[in-house]
């Protein structure tokens, strides 16, 4: 069943479709929610409220061919505008600063351990978390969830131009972070040309 059909069945009051809607999206919604706040309870409550509201207002909803896009937009609004989120944002900033300090030791030891493929990819993966939160979110929506720029603008409630600029800036940032790994890149280049 494609998105439009599933959405239509759900709007007609089909409970199975509703439960499918939930099951097929819960993992990515949960993951995206955690990009927006450190507060697990807030993420869970917001997802729950969102689905309850969806069900109760199903008759008033319009058609959609991307359920995921629709749900992301609603969830983001719910979490960022939640009255309890005020304090959380401040606390979150403090915590990630803490974590950064805390994890810096292990990052260092991983860098030394260049023999370990796993250690290297972990250290690289952490590079993403060094970007500012807004850039991280835009990058996550673009490259992981593969939304287009227009959709990202709608989800994050910013202009199309800001999406372009944010992504461009993020990639510049990543480029700088990656430039420390010239060795890896070279080895991959060889692989690439061997393939050609």
């Amino acid at each position, binding site marked *: 069943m494609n998105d439009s059909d599933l959405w239509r069945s759900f709007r007609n009051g089909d409970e199975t479709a509703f*439960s499918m809607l*939930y*099951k097929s999206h*819960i*993992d990515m919604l*949960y*993951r995206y929610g*955690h990009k927006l706040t*450190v*507060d*697990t*309870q807030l993420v*869970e*409550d917001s*997802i*729950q*409220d969102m*689905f309850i*509201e969806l*069900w*109760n207002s199903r008759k008033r909803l319009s058609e959609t061919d991307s359920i995921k896009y629709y749900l992301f937009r609603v969830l983001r609004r719910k979490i960022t505008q*939640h*009255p*309890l989120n005020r*304090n*959380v944002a401040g606390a*979150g900033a*403090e*915590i990630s600063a*803490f*974590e950064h300090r*805390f994890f810096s030791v*292990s990052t260092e030891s991983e860098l030394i351990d260049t023999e370990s493929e796993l250690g290297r990819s972990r250290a*690289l*993966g952490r*590079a*993403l978390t060094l970007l500012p939160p807004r850039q991280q979110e835009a*990058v*996550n929506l*673009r*490259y*992981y969830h*593969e939304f*287009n720029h227009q959709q990202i603008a709608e989800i994050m409630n910013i202009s199309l131009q800001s999406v372009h600029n944010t*992504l*461009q800036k*993020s*990639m*510049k940032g*990543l*480029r700088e972070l*990656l*430039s420390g790994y010239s060795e*890896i*890149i070279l080895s*991959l*280049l060889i692989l*690439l*040309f061997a393939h*050609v």
Partner: protein
Amino acid sequence: MNYLSFEPEDFATDAFFCSWVLHPTPETELFWLDWLRNNPSKARDIELARQMVLLASSDEEVTPSSETVDRIWQGIEEGKNSKVIVFGNRMIWLKVAAAVILLLVAFGGYFYRQGQSHTFHTAFGESRRVLLPDGTLVTLNANSSLRVADRWGRRTEREVWLDGEAFFSVSKLKKAGQAVKFTVHTHDLNVEVRGTEFNVNTRQDQTQVVLSEGLVHLRLNDRPGKEIQMKPGDLVDFSRSKQRLHIRHLPDASPMYSWKNNRWTLNDASLAEIAVLIRETYGVTVIIENDSLKKQTVNGVVPTDNMGDLLSALETILPITITHQEQRVTIRGRPN
């Protein structure tokens, strides 16, 4: 598209380039390899851009446990079957709840009986936020319970009873120009405030109060005449059974309640102390096999969203191996 003038970040933000990296098709593969052969000087930039896209498309795999997925779904099922939830916005809900309470009061308290109350419980490993009708936010830690008197509409005092641990963010409330007192009762003492933030912990046969901001008065249960005034950063321990009172001032009190954001901030915490925290939070038995390990200390912030993450964080900090079987967690030394 003139790709020749492209910098790596331009490639990485180009939709056609991204689609090749993330979902190569024979066509895109042909195009880019061909382009590379014609522009070998760009090979390094292309590879850098490819790495950037691959990195950008990664994500830490935060996945809800199947219990969490079921719990949320259960909440949805309950919510959609009850008509009241038409108000999705909790603030409206609150106003409705407050209006209903006022209405009940206006009808002469027929509906109220002495001692009527509502109790919130948390299971091991669960924490929960409770928003009280006056706007006060209570974060209830694992294995705790909070009893709330239902008579707030009429009385000039707000009262709750706590067993376990909770962080209170009390909203200021005035009635007829008078500030309304908020009281937390524990088996050892009463915490009286008007509008402030503080943490109360009644575990281990004592009550510990840490004040984050504002002003707090403590009244010890068996010495009603004695009142202790607390200032921000103050920590008070009192045990009625042991008749012990201990007052300290902390330069930074926030580590004492970082649990409410699913983190423990450990400052020279010994493994033995951490074991007690784990037992209280997740309801498991913790065994430290080697006595010398008990004194090992930890500094830093560890995640407590679930016990598995916490245990693996501890394993990376200390030279230990932790095994978890059913309700038993065993900590052993790890040979270097």
